[in-house]
């Protein structure tokens, strides 16, 4: 179980996060949504300890995350961040094997178990056929899946994804979400696409201006009032006839005149 207790984060006296408290139960797929600058990424970065909160507490199984050793935390929590993927030339296999780093001491070599885990992770992320290709020759979607395979090789019980579907075409977006949804672990993902969030997540957390606006099931959270208030859009809510999941339609009431100025 992950708990945030009155977590506050500020830079140069500006509050990026204002007293966030929340609880995440294991095994669920949690989506974090909110407009740009609402604090989604910051909250995730604090969660996976890239940033340190200014005040408040983040605990994992009742232990403060900053008290857990980096290695131990990496065995429990894997992250696919937004960081531009890879700069130098690694083969897909080498990169996925890096997911085993938290299990390795100074003198330990990669063993057959590591290879097996890497193979399985590559199969799960559907990149096994790319194993011997170098990363620089892959498409954006393939790279994202390789980074996911690397995170899976960490065998963590929590997977944090920061906008995993960014830059992916629609086929790969759906594919990635399908893949992640079936994993038997806790998933915490910041998402931009509200329809993807509605279709795949068990719970949604709505962030607005550094505060937690609402936390609940997609049906409870995605309401026209919330969308108006937080996302500043008008929306209609319907059902996707194929998946039976909720589907949102968006429009704005601002019209654009011929001179291109908004009224």
């Amino acid at each position, binding site marked *: 179980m992950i708990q945030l207790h009155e977590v506050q984060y500020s830079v140069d006296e500006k509050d990026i996060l204002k007293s966030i408290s929340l609880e995440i139960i294991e095994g669920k797929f949690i989506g974090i949504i909110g407009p740009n600058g609402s604090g989604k990424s910051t909250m995730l970065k604090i969660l996976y300890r890239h940033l340190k909160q200014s005040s408040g507490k983040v605990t994992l199984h009742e232990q403060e995350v900053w008290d857990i050793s980096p*290695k131990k935390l990496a065995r429990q929590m894997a*992250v696919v961040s937004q960081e531009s993927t890879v700069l*130098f030339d690694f083969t897909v296999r*080498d990169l996925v094997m890096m997911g085993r780093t938290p299990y390795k001491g100074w003198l330990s070599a990669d063993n057959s178990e590591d290879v097996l885990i890497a193979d399985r992770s590559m199969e799960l992320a559907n990149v096994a056929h790319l194993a011997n290709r170098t990363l620089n020759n892959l498409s954006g979607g393939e790279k994202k899946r390789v980074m996911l395979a690397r995170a899976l090789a960490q065998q963590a019980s929590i997977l944090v994804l920061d906008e995993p579907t960014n830059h992916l075409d629609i086929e790969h977006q759906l594919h990635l979400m399908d893949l992640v949804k079936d994993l038997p672990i806790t998933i915490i993902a910041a998402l931009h696409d509200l329809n993807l969030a509605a279709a795949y997540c068990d719970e949604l957390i709505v962030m607005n201006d550094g505060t937690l606006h609402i936390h609940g099931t997609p049906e409870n959270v995605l309401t026209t009032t919330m969308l108006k208030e937080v996302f500043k859009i008008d929306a209609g809510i319907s059902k996707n006839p194929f998946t039976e999941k909720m589907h949102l339609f968006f429009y704005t009431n601002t019209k654009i005149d011929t001179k291109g100025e908004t009224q």
Partner: protein
Amino acid sequence: MVGSVGITPQLIIEVLLYKTGMLSETNASNAQQVIIWEIRVPRVLLALLVGASLAISGAAIQALVKNSIADPYILGVSSGASVGATSVILFGAFSFFGIFALSFAAFLGAIFAVMIVFLLARVSGKTSMIRLLLSGIAVSMVLGAMTNFMLMISKEQGGVQAVMFWMLGSLGGAKWSNIGIPFITFCIVFPLLLLSYRQLNALLLGEETASTLGINIERFRLFIIIIVSLLTGVVVAVSGSIGFVGLIVPHIVRMIVGSNYKVVLPLSALLGAIIIIWADMGARIAIAPEEMPIGIITALCGSPFFIWMLRRQRYAFGEGE
């Protein structure tokens, strides 16, 4: 083992076997024995150590700052060493160290410079890599100005030339007595770097990803900075600042085998050693019996080759999409 005095290969092998006790007598004259055993052998060994050390230091620094134009001197090592060396050559500083004064002063200058650069790059307990690069440049400029100032006020023409020669790098000072320290340092630092290959690889994925892979970034960086500056400092102290190798060799190796540091480090050491051994040979015979500074050879021969590889496009030099 070529040089200004002609000696046949058979004679060299004979002397080597004789000196290592595998041959009981030799036809070589005493003078030939001295040239081979006291001058040329240590020189080749030093070339090997210098080349390997600079290449692995460069590879490690490039991973550390995640910047492909970084070289081992980016932390101020060579400019610091130059100040130390120049003050010894021109003003006889540290003369109480006798023949080791030059190496000692150069090493001291190198370590001093790195410490300043590192302290400047630290802001509220965190070391920013871009600050490290920029403060390296700034500190190098100040130290370079100091070196130039000393050169300018010096009246000694011979001294000025000696400083120039030192700054361009030379293995001419190789003796059995001064390859010991570089050898020991290399034998400690190389395995330490090799054992850190996972962390170095992870750093290439970016600071954030590396930390989510369980690496204590601040501690690891400090560790790498310390061992790498120690190694470069020791090497620069005996050989002067030989350019090019530390920057280019890691790139050439990555072009051939990819970025996995498990392979990049040993191959860089090997290629660096080979390049410096051959470059030093070139330095000795190019304008024999005079010696050319080795830095001129490495830059003159290495750069065109590097440019050629650069034009082949397949390698991304750490550039993103």
